[in-house]
């Protein structure tokens, strides 16, 4: 197996991009990544594109061909593959690109992620997202996606004493971080009171506990580490790439307040990289809801089970603190175009490790972790990146 590095990154602004189509945004992100890497189109060997549900959001399937076509690469007939695991689709695309390069099968590969969510109304979007859960035995019974995480939050509060204020502290931190990110959907800080006074979506989760509906795309270019320096002075090495699965329905998990897929992916990743959670300088974790960030920082191993809420309230996950989490603003405030999220996380960590993150820069960050989840934890993907 060959070592793999990221040699180029690109990401669109996140938000309600009504004047842009799906094909506009993935081309925009892809071209940014290609220009950043300084590669020629003819050098690209393959594309992996993460997308959850273009079939329902924009009634377009066969994105693999669409991507190659509008990227201007149809004439060289390169293989293109769309991958899907709900909100972990982007993480999966990155992992597929890593495997393709590590194996020696391809050299220069684009891993992209894109989602256009605002071309349908909110009811339709809510229903599409509910398809990340078990349609026949959760969705039909009346479950919405926020309600599934709300049931986790309720039990986490019951077992560990986690409070609504601690959940809100996740949103407050991530909105503050997003205020320093020009790509973010929401760049205004919010207060604990703003979160607690926002309307209830699924008790105990308020509107501001939930990530938004977002359009956006991101892309990274990966290459064998041995030739990465030909393209960039600052290759970002991918030192672990793990993917795990668990039951699709929350009710079948042994412990409802633990994403066992995250625990397994993290253990494998730390073993592969020969690191411990304490070695990580910065992390982008899957905060589709505030409770999800608390689960993530516990299940990855940054904090003990049950202590994630208090750690967040105490400021231990802020920029400049013990383990800065979601400096980009996370899914919560930067936005969550579901298929793009896993790649956007890689772009953020690559920028941080290059020292190019501007006002939200985590000083001296050398090792970063990315955590991307599908559904309520049916899929988890973890990458560890290093300078």
């Amino acid at each position: 197996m060959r070592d793999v590095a990221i040699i180029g990154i690109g990401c669109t602004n996140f938000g309600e991009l009504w004047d842009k189509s799906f094909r506009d945004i993935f081309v925009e992100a892809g071209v940014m990544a290609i220009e950043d890497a300084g590669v020629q189109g003819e050098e690209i060997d393959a594309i992996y594109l993460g997308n959850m549900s273009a079939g329902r959001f924009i009634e377009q399937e066969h994105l693999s061909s669409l991507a190659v076509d509008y990227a201007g690469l149809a004439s060289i007939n390169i293989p293109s593959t769309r991958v899907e695991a709900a909100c972990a689709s982007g993480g999966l695309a990155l992992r597929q690109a890593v495997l393709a390069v590590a194996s020696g099968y391809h050299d220069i590969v684009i891993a992209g992620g894109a989602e256009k969510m605002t071309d349908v109304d909110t009811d339709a979007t809510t229903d599409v997202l509910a398809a990340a859960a078990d349609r026949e035995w959760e969705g039909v019974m009346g479950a919405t996606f926020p309600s599934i995480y709300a049931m986790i939050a309720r039990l986490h509060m019951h077992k560990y004493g986690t409070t609504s204020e601690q959940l809100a502290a996740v949103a407050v931190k991530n909105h503050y971080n997003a205020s320093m990110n020009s790509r973010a959907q929401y760049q205004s800080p919010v207060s604990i009171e703003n979160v607690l006074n926002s309307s209830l979506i699924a008790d105990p989760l308020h509107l501001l506990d939930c990530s938004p509906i977002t359009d956006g795309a991101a892309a990274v270019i990966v290459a064998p580490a041995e030739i990465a320096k030909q393209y960039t002075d600052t290759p970002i090495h991918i030192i672990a790439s793990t993917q795990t699965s668990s039951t699709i329905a929350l009710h079948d998990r042994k412990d409802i307040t633990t994403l066992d897929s995250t625990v397994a992916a993290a253990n494998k990743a730390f073993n592969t990289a020969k690191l411990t959670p304490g070695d990580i300088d910065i992390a982008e974790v899957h905060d589709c809801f505030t409770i999800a960030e608390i689960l993530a920082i516990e299940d990855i191993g940054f904090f003990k089970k049950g202590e994630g809420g208090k750690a967040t309230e105490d400021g231990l996950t802020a920029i400049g603190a013990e383990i800065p989490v979601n400096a980009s603003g996370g899914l919560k405030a930067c936005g969550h175009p579901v298929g793009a999220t896993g790649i956007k996380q890689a772009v953020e960590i690559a920028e941080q490790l290059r020292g190019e993150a501007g006002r939200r820069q985590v000083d001296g960050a050398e090792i970063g972790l990315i955590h991307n989840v599908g559904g309520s934890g049916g899929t988890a993907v973890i990458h560890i990146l290093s300078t």
Partner: protein
Amino acid sequence: MAVSRFWRKLRHRYNLIGTHCTTCNTYYYPPRKMCPQCRRDGRIEECRFKGKGVIVTYTVIHAAPENKAVQTPYVLGIVQLDEGPRLTSQIICKPDDARIGMRVQSVFRKLGEDSEQGMIYYGTKFIQD
């Protein structure tokens, strides 16, 4: 939801019929044709649950896609049946009355409908026992 996808499981939805693996003596609801513990060594038979259980966790849903059969707010919970398996279902009670650990029993109720002229879906919900 497509009609066939729904009626295939009508018996299971209407009567709380799941499966039981006689090899490891584990009960499954929703029904499974493959025992996740014994896999090909499992022997699966159908079984009907008594419909009694306890609320493991719950939420009160205030925002949901429009569905004339369900008015927000409504209570959704994970119920652990006395035989062991857990399922996701609506709890018919006042939102303030729901609590973790509450004993519940199954009832037959309307779950939803496609439209005014569309198919009506029925299935299992739970009430306080």
